[in-house]
């Protein structure tokens, strides 16, 4: 009986280690990515709002050519902005359109984050379940022996 229990315990542990934990790690990584994207878009939104507030028409920036070598660049007209809408497409927007798009994008991202959070929670719950099962398997024989001694 003990050997069987031992085997079961081993199986549970293996399941936890091999499948559940990596799944958890994976899900957390995906969620972090989406967090980053969310941050990007919120930064963009802030910048555009800034531009609108200050009525900035032209812009001078330093463009990174690669390996941290910068070159001066001028933006004569800031009214048009090209935003990445996914799948390699950039759409030309005006400021207000851009802001609308950004808010839409934000919603989508939030939904994705929620999904991932649920997935992560379920994986964590599964891990806890398996651990409880292992604990039960290990405790029951102990309890029995304890009872035996009491008798």
């Amino acid at each position, binding site marked *: 009986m003990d050997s069987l229990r031992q085997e079961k315990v081993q199986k549970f542990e293996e399941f936890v280690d091999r499948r559940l934990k990596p799944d958890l790690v994976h899900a957390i990584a995906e969620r972090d990515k989406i967090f980053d994207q969310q941050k990007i878009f919120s*930064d*963009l939104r802030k910048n555009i709002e800034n531009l609108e507030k200050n009525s900035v028409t032209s812009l001078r920036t330093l463009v990174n*050519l690669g390996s941290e070598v*910068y070159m001066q660049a001028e933006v004569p007209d800031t009214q048009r902005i*090209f935003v990445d809408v996914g799948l390699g497409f950039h759409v030309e927007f005006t400021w207000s359109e851009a802001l609308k798009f950004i808010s839409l994008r934000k919603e989508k991202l939030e939904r994705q984050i929620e999904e991932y959070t649920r997935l992560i929670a379920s994986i964590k719950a599964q891990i806890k379940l398996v651990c409880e099962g292992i604990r039960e398997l290990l405790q029951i024989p102990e309890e029995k022996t304890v009872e035996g001694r009491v008798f």
Partner: protein
Amino acid sequence: MGKSEVKGTVTSLSSMFPAEEVQKAAKMVEEKLSEKQNEMNQLKEFIANNTSLINLVQKLPDELHHDIMVPFGKAAFFPGRLIHTNEFLVLLGESYYTERTAKQTVEILKRRGKSLESKVDALKAVMQDLKAEASFFDSTASEAAEGLVEIREYEEDNSTERASQSGSLELETPSVAEADNKMGASEDDEYARIMSRLEELEKEELAAEDNEENLEDEDEDANAVESDGNEDELTKAAEGDGDEDELTKAAFHRKKDECYSYLDHGQRYSESQSRKQLQQFNGKEPIEEMSNKYKHQDLTKQFASTGLTEEPVTKGEISHGQIIQQDTQTLSPSINAFAPFEKKSVQTSKSEFDSSKAFTGSIVEHTQNLDKSSVGTNMTSLQSSGSQPWKPVSRFKMQRK
């Protein structure tokens, strides 16, 4: 055949390098190798980026302005133009920037490329070492799996002497050479000591050359040097007859012949070996041979001389025989065997007998042994352990014949 007490160890490679550990080591080395490979790939990427940037920087000053899409954050672009196409802001590190022209920027980038390439070369060397390690581990793992066995042989003084007598060819193993090499340094010191001691003895012989009266001493000496059949002759002659001089002379001659014949034997056997093994002692060999012959004569004279205690004579005899063995086999064991004898300069006869026991088998005459039943008893009385050496002696005798 004398007992070849060549102590040896037979260790299977698998015990020295357990298969599992070897595999683990091989795995570790492989992991390290893969890590280094990743680093190498990264460095190569950097180098490629660097070269493409150099090309770009060289092309940009061709135009006054360049129409580009200026990035605004990570997800948005602005249409714009590149201006001041000859001014580059280069990051030197630690938040230090510098404005440079295109040419200067190219130079900076080229220097960066050189440092990267040197890093790549260093990494390549490290990877090669790791690969060699991995191949070694793999080979040892396969060998251990096959069950290869490593055999090491160590020489002992006694065993080498007997072995040299019985068949010097047998001991033609690298272990012998190792033993020689190991004992080389100590041998030199001991050899010097031995030579000095022998020179002293020679002087004594020359001084006592005229004194050939103490036959008892000779007898005792002969008894002491039981390994030599001449002992028996001498004792027999001494006890039986009064013509000590004649008998001793005959004994000397016989002994000489035996010694020399043994020398020839040894030389025949060991000619090939001595070249290899006694390379260290090239200079010493001729000296030894000369000293051997010289001392042989001196020792025989010693036999006849008076006032010489047993110890030095036996030592001389033993040293002589041992030196012969040196020629035949290896120098180290005999020298080592001889050295302790010197140290026992003032010891009981039993110690001599032990040393003579070590020296057994050099020269024996069956007839003498048989006839010497009476003498043998005397000798045995003198030599507590005398009986034992006879056997190996006889065995050797059988072999020789």
